[in-house]
């Protein structure tokens, strides 16, 4: 074991050699090796990215529009500023929903104020007002509007709050949410999540005049599931089978009604801790709603999570949880029987965002695979603490990894699978490594829940045991 750790440390030291000294000092704090028994992963996180290194990170706008707000399907989210941000994030995250797009749902549309030079010079508030008027006219069934600020908004001193208030009043109290998620704020997507969470608190919860009371003792909300490839659906079905009443989905396939009703639930169940712990904590403090983290990747963690969630309820629910686990046992067994022999002992290197750098480890282990390296795009210290419950001794940890580092780590550790994002996919495939995108599920999914695990297993098998990798090396 310790030789593993020594080896990994050596690899890190070698990789760091490329950097100018100032950068090396900064980057070495983000790279580490997990050692059993330690309380954290030994890396610093949530710090500004060093310029010029090819970070994988995005921005606050991506965290707010792309992650938290964007999936709320019956509201119109204006990408406020120049055209690009909305264009590049247009329908790219696969937040599935059911609805008539363009009429009562707007998830896969790109609404932008398409800022021109005159808007920068004279300000965009009047344009924003007009945009809201035009939205009301052309999309009369929208249930609300959010203003997703792009970089220039905060720099030119626009007052999007005033515009939002004014227009909300004019539109009979319609929910209009100004979001200060300019891309230069913070160090990554992460601040965008936080800002977006806070706007739900301030502009949805705090604007409610009446508290609804028609709840049941079994009301819960799914928090932090963006329904990528249908993840929230294959999760919801299990909770409903357990006898819980899922009042809201935050925010995949979600609606403003669901957000507004969440303060009535008995328990918030939180999947992506990173992006939605803020609102969960707020609801705990203000409404006394407990929250619990869960993990629906892979049967081991699913069963553990179902029991954990059931623990907040009466015996009926607890018994139901056991029934659900039993119901899916045959499927789980058959899935593992089919795929585990093909995947046993294979190694994986991960680099993703949110909860996945730790949450998916159990699913790999259910298939007999080992995660030998992992890291977070925009994790904080509490993420790395939570990671210690998942990783094994000697796992290499890289925070906000640079393109260079990731390439070198993979070259050194030669995993059987690299699991990361679109920007990394083709780099590693060229190098001959099987790869799966673990943000978009590589256009597959869902991966959550028991139904999702079968898909996850199939996909990992099809990546690793694909005949193409045998052909990468030319015989000549």
């Amino acid at each position, binding site marked *: 074991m310790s030789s593993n750790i020594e080896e990994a440390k050596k690899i890190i030291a070698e990789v760091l050699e490329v950097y100018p000294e100032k*950068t090396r000092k900064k980057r070495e704090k983000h790279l580490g090796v997990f050692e059993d028994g330690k309380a954290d992963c030994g890396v610093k996180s949530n710090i500004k990215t060093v310029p010029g290194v090819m970070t994988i*990170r995005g921005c606050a706008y991506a965290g707010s529009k792309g992650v938290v707000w964007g999936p709320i399907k019956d509201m119109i989210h204006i990408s406020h500023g120049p055209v690009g941000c909305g264009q*590049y994030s247009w329908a790219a995250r696969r937040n599935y929903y059911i609805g008539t797009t363009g009429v009562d749902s707007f998830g896969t549309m790109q609404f932008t104020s398409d800022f021109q030079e005159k808007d920068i010079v004279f300000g965009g508030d009047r344009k924003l007002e007009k945009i809201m008027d*035009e939205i009301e006219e052309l999309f009369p069934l929208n249930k609300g509007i959010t203003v997703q600020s792009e970089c220039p908004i905060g720099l030119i001193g626009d007052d999007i709050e005033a515009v939002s208030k004014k227009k909300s009043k004019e539109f009979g109290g319609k929910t209009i949410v100004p979001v200060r998620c300019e891309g230069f704020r913070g160090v990554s997507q992460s601040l965008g999540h936080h800002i977006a969470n806070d706007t739900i608190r301030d502009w949805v919860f705090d604007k409610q005049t009446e508290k609804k009371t028609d709840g049941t003792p079994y009301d819960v909300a799914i928090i932090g599931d963006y329904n990528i490839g249908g993840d929230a659906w294959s999760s919801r079905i299990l909770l409903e089978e357990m006898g819980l009443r899922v009042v809201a989905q935050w925010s995949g396939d979600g609606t403003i009604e669901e957000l507004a009703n969440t303060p009535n639930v008995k328990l918030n169940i939180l999947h992506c801790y990173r992006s939605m712990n803020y609102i969960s904590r707020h609801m705990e403090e203000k409404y006394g709603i407990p929250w619990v983290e869960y993990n629906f990747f892979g049967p081991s963690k699913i069963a553990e999570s179902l029991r954990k969630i059931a623990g907040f309820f009466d015996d009926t629910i607890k018994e139901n949880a056991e029934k659900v686990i039993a119901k899916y046992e045959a499927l789980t067994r*058959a899935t593992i029987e089919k795929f585990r022999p093909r995947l046993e002992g294979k190694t994986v290197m991960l680099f993703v965002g949110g909860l996945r750098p730790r949450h998916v480890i159990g699913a790999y282990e259910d298939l007999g695979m080992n995660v030998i390296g992992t890291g977070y795009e925009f994790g904080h210290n509490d993420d790395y603490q939570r990671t210690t419950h998942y990783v094994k001794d000697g796992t290499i940890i890289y925070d906000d990894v640079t393109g260079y580092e990731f390439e070198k780590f993979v070259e050194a550790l030669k995993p059987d699978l690299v699991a990361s994002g679109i920007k990394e996919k083709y780099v590693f495939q060229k190098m001959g490594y099987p790869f799966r995108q673990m943000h978009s599920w590589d256009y597959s999914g869902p991966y959550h829940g028991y139904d999702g695990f079968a898909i996850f297993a199939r996909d990992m098998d099809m990546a690793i045991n694909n005949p193409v990798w045998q052909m990468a090396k030319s015989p000549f």
Partner: protein
Amino acid sequence: MSQNPKHVLDHFNLFREPEYVEMFENKKKNFENPHPQEKVSEIIEWTKTQEYRDLNFRREALTVNPAKACQPLGAVFAALGFEETLPFVHGSQGCVAYYRSHLSRHFKEPTSCVSSSMTEDAAVFGGLNNMIDGLANAYAMYKPKMIAVSTTCMAEVIGDDLNAFIKNAKEKGSVPEEFDVPFAHTPAFVGSHITGYDNALKGIMEHFWAGRERSANETINVVMGFDGYSVGNIRELKRIFKEMGIDAIVLSDVSDVFDTPTDGTFRMYMGGTRLSDMKKALDSKATVSLQEYNTPKSLEYAAHLGQKTLAFNYPVGVRATDRFLSELSQLTGKAVPESLKLERGRLVDAVADSTSHIHGKKFALYGDPDQMMGLSEFLMELGAEPVHVLSTNGNKDWEEKMNALFASSPFGAGCHAWPGKDLWHMRSLLFTEPVDFLIGNTYGKYLERDTGTPLIRIGFPIFDRHHHHRYPTVGYQGAMNVLVKILDKIFDEMDKNTNAVAKTDYSYDIIR
């Protein structure tokens, strides 16, 4: 429970299973507070009307589903076409994540590009330190031969001065004094990705050409411009020039950059315009652009240095390619060779073989301005009518040129150019004045779904079909590919619309 490891159901079929369908219905009914279905149906129908179209076209402020991106995307794309060049975008880092994802989703290739990762403090104090550190890090890690700098809107709004910053960074030793760092200011709130391409290219031209003596030779510089088919098109252009016997330098040659092999090695850099060639390109007799609206400043700069310039509008089709080749021939004194005449004849042969299936068909199309001109002209050559031609980044001048083009053919009668409009405008056009086919990028699939107009994918980005960027769309060969693409869709639709058994399948012909 419907899942089955023997035959795994993923999102395509899993959610059609009864337990999920029921779950969706209950979620909607119990928790979403939906609008009544009659209301939704009423609005659906209303959005199809002329009344809605009129309101829609009265929009002054809101843009919905535009067919354009922002300047730095084009700048990064242009920069990638040079030998071992690392694009460096000064400003917020999220932008670079977006450009890289966007290009990779289209080409299914890696996109290397770095950011100076400016945050709040840089917004207050300026991004000079980000430039100094960023250049030093990028140079040390990725060992490029050139770093081409452009800007995000953040850096533009706060007014960072690239020229001064790069000088300063060089003084601080970030990169060697003689190291090539061309730059271009590329504000996202001016123009579109094609403007950024032009600015970046001009920046690189200036970097290599400014202040040097020009001694003209017979070489021709060629610029493809921003183009999702660059891999195929640049290779095709090189072939055409070779056939013509013309020495050519492609300015920004991304053909190998976006087409690297899977053989165990990741090539961050491959191909591209050699920097030594870029230097030499000052002496070229002329600079020829395949996309006029994509390269005005670059051409103006080349002309100002004494080069001849020629600009085309994405020549796809017979006559556009004829003009392209004759003007090249005039410019260089080289005759159009037999081989290309033969290709021309083969294209006309193919058109003659198939024209009866295209004749009189109505098309709507959208995309970059030059591409719209090239495709419209070709459609008219095929006897088709380009009824709605929309270009979000087209301007008044483009509109006039489009109108002249329509006027040049009987098939242009009643056709309309729409500069500055978006795909929500197009939706109204397709409902109120339906056409047979739509040509556009991947986002056109939403129009296809809503209006039932079959989509022929030609444009950028194409995310949901693979590998078409490898095949040319300009010249006679390009026209052949475009023709086949159009025909395939026409025949597929014909089959789809005639296959009802014992009802319409008499027309489900085996020979077409």
